């Protein structure tokens, strides 16, 4: 089998992993080497499904000895199998990198032989890249559940980011669908890495202390393969952000790859809208200072398919609105539907100098169609200043059909670089 065929098989096998971010590490090229890290991350291209490609994302091998129901690489599938040699993988990474196709390598693997034997291979590739080739680009290593702490620790020394995917948002369902796995086996490496990173950050460091996972950890959950509610999913991800200090939690709408009676039928469409709403909720938690319990609770356990979670929150809390942009806190401005982080910052820095008029808001990119019901502004007609959620709801639902799927871009381009923010008057 030639390298091109291997690359196709092992790239294809890795493509269901959503994470492709190259953010969180800032580093210059090592002496005599090549490659740097850009803390905002850099997207290099977008595949035909609109997902950003930033790293060379491949499996080391897809010859898995496990049999997870939801996975294309499971042992019981009859598919072509391939395994890279470390040399091939290193060459590919460096050649792609020099041509600026990628920010670095995202290396994962099916479990071949034993977890330790697999992890050993991944660590070896990372170590060669860093030490022999003096590679300063981004490396994301998957932590294989069941691998020994020694190997996990070593991985943390060479990789920028590591991840263990939960995949199924509840332990019971996971054990049902992936008989060889359980939450214990997934949380153990996660917690181990989180603790080592904490120790590293707390400990005494000199310029020479090797960094430990500078870009932290991430994980991924499949949405729609098992019966969890959005509340369960958000609660779990809030836990990851707080306890394991995860940098990102990804959601992946389930795409039926296997015929299996434990899973939705092969004809099921991936729940893209639900995935999109979950990303919006996640976005609110990470950038808009929302807590997960503000977004959903036991009486509303699922996100509204017709309305984005921010508008949903605003309609449930008419008591906070309308707000005065001239005096309101930044946090409160962020909660106005139709106002994003960038415009909120502009408003706060501009309002010290002059009154913010609707005309300016429009130019800043505020979606007045939505925002006008929630702000108190001399230019807004008085009859709009009282908020009746029942009347407002239909007005905020932009289009009746779920045609908003292409709003993804705002959500899925987290690694879009934001070159030095202009600090004008902030």
């Amino acid at each position: 089998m030639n390298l091109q065929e291997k690359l196709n098989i092992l790239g294809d096998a890795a493509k269901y992993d959503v994470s492709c971010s190259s953010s969180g590490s800032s580093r210059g090229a090592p002496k005599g080497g090549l490659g740097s890290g850009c803390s905002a991350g850099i997207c290099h291209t977008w595949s035909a499904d609109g997902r950003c490609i930033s790293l060379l994302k491949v499996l080391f091998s897809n010859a898995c000895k496990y049999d997870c129901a939801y996975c294309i690489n499971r042992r019981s599938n009859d598919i072509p199998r391939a395994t890279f040699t470390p040399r091939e993988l290193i060459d590919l990474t460096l050649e792609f990198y020099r041509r600026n196709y990628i920010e670095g390598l995202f290396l994962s693997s099916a479990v071949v032989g034993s977890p330790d034997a697999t992890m050993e291979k991944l660590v070896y590739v990372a170590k060669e890249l860093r030490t022999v080739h003096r590679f300063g680009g981004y490396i994301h290593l998957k932590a294989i559940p069941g691998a020994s702490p020694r190997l996990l620790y070593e991985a943390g020394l060479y990789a920028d980011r590591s991840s263990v995917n939960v995949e199924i948002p509840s332990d019971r369902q996971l054990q049902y669908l992936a008989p060889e796995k359980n939450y214990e086996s997934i949380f153990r490496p996660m917690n181990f890495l989180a603790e080592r990173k904490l120790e590293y950050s707390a400990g005494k460091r000199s310029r020479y202390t090797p960094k430990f996972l500078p870009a932290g950890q991430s994980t991924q959950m499949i949405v729609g393969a098992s019966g969890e509610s959005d509340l369960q999913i958000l609660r779990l991800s809030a836990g990851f952000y707080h306890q394991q200090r995860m940098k990102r939690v990804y959601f992946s709408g389930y795409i039926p790859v296997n015929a299996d009676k434990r899973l939705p039928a092969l004809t099921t469409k991936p729940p893209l809208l639900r995935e999109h709403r979950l990303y919006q909720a996640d976005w609110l938690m990470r950038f808009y200072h929302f807590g997960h319990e503000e977004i959903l609770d036991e009486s509303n356990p699922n996100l509204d398919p017709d309305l984005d979670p921010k508008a949903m929150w605003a309609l449930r809390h008419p008591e906070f609105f309308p707000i005065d942009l001239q005096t309101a806190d930044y946090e409160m401005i962020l909660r106005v539907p139709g106002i994003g982080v960038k415009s909120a910052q502009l408003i706060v820095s501009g309002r010290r100098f002059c009154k913010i008029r609707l005309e300016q808001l429009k130019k800043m990119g505020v979606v007045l169609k939505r925002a006008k019901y929630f702000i108190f502004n001399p230019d807004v007609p008085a009859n709009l200043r009282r908020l009746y959620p029942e009347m407002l709801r239909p007005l905020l639902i932009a289009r009746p059909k779920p045609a908003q799927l292409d709003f993804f871009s705002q959500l899925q381009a987290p690694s879009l670089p934001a070159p030095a923010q202009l600090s004008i008057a902030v």
Partner: protein
Amino acid sequence: MSLSISYDSSFDGFLSVVFETYRQRLDVGDIVPERPYDSDVTPSVDLFMQPFHVETNADSASRLRRAVVNMAGEDVLNLLETAFRSEERGVEMKILAYLRVLFSKSDPGFARNPTSSEMLPLFLLARAVRHEAGGMLGMVRFNKAPDGSYIAEIEPKYDILEMIVGHFRGRFPNGRWAIVDVKRCYGAFYDGRHTEILDLPDTDTLSRSIAEKAPPDEFTRMWKSYYDTMAIKERLNPRLLRRCLPVRYWKHLHERQQNLAGPASRPTA
């Protein structure tokens, strides 16, 4: 009669124009760059304006720079220059409008207020230019030449080559590489130590000679086929793709090209 002022299209040239408008109390009707590659921007003959040319003068430009830094700050000067890189028709008059209010000292809060009616358009324009420069960091595609150097062609909407060179110098400090803006016909050349910015011959010859010097190779083809496998067919979304990766960039992205056979199949112009 007001003047239609032409200048050499450089930022220093524009600053010289501003300097002269103050020194000679010119009545400015329009400011028009002489830009060889932008045929649609060549000044239409306006019967109500008198043509006038200002030569670039490094000294007056630097005096003006100092004045802006003193009154508004380094970052504002930087913002103006970034907005200027957009090469948008009429950006000169917008910057002039901002500078006029700034120099009139009528409002102490004006200099650094991003939401004033003079500043907001420049602020947004600069943001768009930065955005493209940031995106271009990922979209430069090098081909390897037989002598071991790497060459990339870009064709950005805005004039951002000089904004991205530092990134690549930091990333490939030991290699030899060049990034060429084939629309504006100039390139940045790095020899392992220094970067040089050089003007180059016209677009067609340029593109052809680069294609001959560094044609796509096996890694280019592997990249293309890797790219194709990464798309999940159940999720295909052409509109989303176009929004994230506007079609105008595809020409220089190997992965978006249908045929990677060789230089002959490259789309022309």
